[in-house]
């Protein structure tokens, strides 16, 4: 049986006018990289902060590395590393000084040089934090999380706002941590990030997990691995059944004036689709196809896009 590194059972967290978590369950296995995906306000940060013993849930319980916060706080703090969504590191310190400050809190860990090497900030060691680029700052935050050689790493949107190159650098850092046996819980808005990095993904919406599995499993749950998306230029209405009758089409959804078909064989669907539309007098405006992603999974589960909450 797999060891469970992180466990949430029935977490509830309410604020004055919102229920941030509404009975959330989660299990993260030791050694895996686990992703929480969800729109703004889904409850990702709330979950991750409760898991880190920074927030008290109104109901439910969490265990980290098999221990409760109440009884093992000291030990757990030594064994976890974290990067928080909103933290701004001290502006007037140098990169090296910031890492040394965090290193001093832990009994064991790496040397400052070692960590800076790992996150590729060695040549910036003497620069003030205020002079760093967004990507460098984010890597510094992760360096502070890694300096204690943690068993569990919490990363709350580590790549939000970064350019593709910085994002890939970050992915490399996370992959290296995982390859050394560390457990990672990360949140993200980026589908391709979750698909690339995560062994398993939980899709969170309105404070609950609405889908769970490997990225592959979730995409396969759509029943087809391609998405054909198009818009009709004139006012012709085509009933959904017509699309479902096309060979290989598994699902139909409408969104923002567009129609989306999930299909297994694009090359068979498209000629059929053109014929059907022509027969009904509909003119095609746009037509795109792509491999199904977690975004499509979210859309089919909720009817909404991840990004617009």
């Amino acid at each position: 049986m797999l060891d469970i590194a992180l466990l949430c059972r029935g977490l509830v967290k309410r604020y004055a006018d919102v229920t941030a978590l509404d009975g959330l369950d989660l299990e993260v296995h030791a050694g895996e990289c686990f992703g929480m995906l969800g729109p703004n306000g889904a409850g990702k940060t709330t979950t991750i902060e409760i898991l880190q013993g920074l927030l008290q849930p109104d109901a439910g319980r969490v265990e980290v590395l098999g221990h409760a916060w109440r009884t093992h706080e000291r030990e757990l703090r030594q064994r976890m590393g974290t990067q928080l969504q909103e933290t701004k590191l001290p502006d007037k310190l140098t990169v090296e000084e910031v890492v040394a400050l965090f290193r001093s809190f832990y009994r064991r860990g790496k040397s400052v040089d070692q960590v800076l090497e790992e996150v590729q900030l060695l040549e910036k060691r003497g620069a003030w934090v205020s002079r760093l680029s967004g990507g460098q700052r984010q890597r510094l935050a992760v360096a502070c999380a890694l300096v204690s050689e943690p068993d569990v790493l919490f990363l709350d949107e580590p790549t939000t706002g970064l350019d593709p190159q910085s994002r890939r650098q970050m992915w490399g850092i996370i992959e290296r941590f995982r390859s050394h046996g560390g457990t990672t819980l990360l949140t993200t808005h980026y589908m391709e990030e979750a698909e690339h990095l995560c062994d398993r993904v939980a899709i969170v919406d309105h404070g609950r997990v609405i889908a769970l599995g490997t990225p592959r499993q979730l995409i396969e749950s759509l029943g087809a691995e391609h998405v054909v998306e198009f818009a009709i230029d004139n006012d012709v209405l085509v009933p959904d059944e017509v699309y479902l009758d096309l060979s290989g089409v598994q699902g139909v959804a409408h969104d923002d004036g567009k129609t989306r078909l999930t299909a297994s064989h694009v090359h068979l669907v498209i000629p059929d689709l053109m014929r059907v539309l022509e027969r009904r007098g509909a003119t095609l405006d746009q037509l795109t196809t792509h491999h199904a992603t977690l975004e499509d999974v979210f859309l089919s589960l909720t009817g909404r896009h991840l990004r617009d909450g």
Partner: protein
Amino acid sequence: MTGSMRSWPIVHLTLWRVREFTREPEALFWVFAFPILLAFALGVAFKGRGPEVIRVAVEDGDGAAATAAALRISERLEPLVLDSAEAHNRLRTGKVALVVRPGEPVLLRYDSTRAESEMARMVVGDALQDAAGRREARVIAHETVAEPGARYIDFLIPGLLGLNIMGTGMWGVGFGIVKNRSQKLLKRFMASPMQRSQYLLSFVLARLVFLGLEVVAVLLFGHLVFGVPLRGSVFSVAIIVVLGAMTFAGLGLLVASRSKTIEGVSGLMNLVMVPMWIFSGVFFAYSHFPDAVQMFARYLPLTALNDALRAVLLDGAPLVAVAGLLAILLLWASVGFGVALKIFRWE
């Protein structure tokens, strides 16, 4: 890294505080240069200025010229001969302190609630009596002094020192903590095994590092430039400034204990400090205030600090002589730290 002192969290935390300060040129200016510039400006402005010349009006008419001439003999008076309407107009607007109407008897018109007019009444009275040939019933000899210790600058320097200790203590601690909180650094620290007590202690230690420099800078400046006496023992002064610094660090911690924003804590800070700028005898003695206000002023921490500093620096008083003042400081320090630690918001 070795297992030496260099890896202690308290060393890193304190170094951080010190660096945050020394890498901020504006902060350095306000802490070191500003009090010295202020002392210099005020010291020069009030240096050796004699009693002010008093302007008085003489109503035009019979005997006006003779009266004005009699008044002019006194160095302190500057008489102006004006017609009656103009003279009273100037009295009303405060341009002259008093109006003299020559005649028998001479009439002096003035507003008895104005200190300047009261002074004018006495000086004019003396001048007129002397001119009329008054003989003193008793000979009184005068000797004026300008001893170090009794001048305005001597009063000012300890007050400025107290003011500086208050300002740097409250801002240094209060501002630093609220900044960490609003940038979510405090939360980040809470996620690590950092001990809260060490975090707070680092603020106190960093204060002590700068306190020495601040105190030496201000006192040395006053002593070398204006000859302000430093009569008390170094030990007594050290005890007083450290206790004062701790008191204001505690109050800084208190105002910072729940504030989430820099704006919020700035408001609170001013609410606490402005009354002390006014009532604690920094620029002028609080004995000018009505009794009830003085009672209140006496228990303010900055008043206790200033009074203790003046007693020790200017009069060379021993610590026992200011024990009551130190007790007031100690009380404020315990209230500050005690309440702050109870209500402090860490997340």
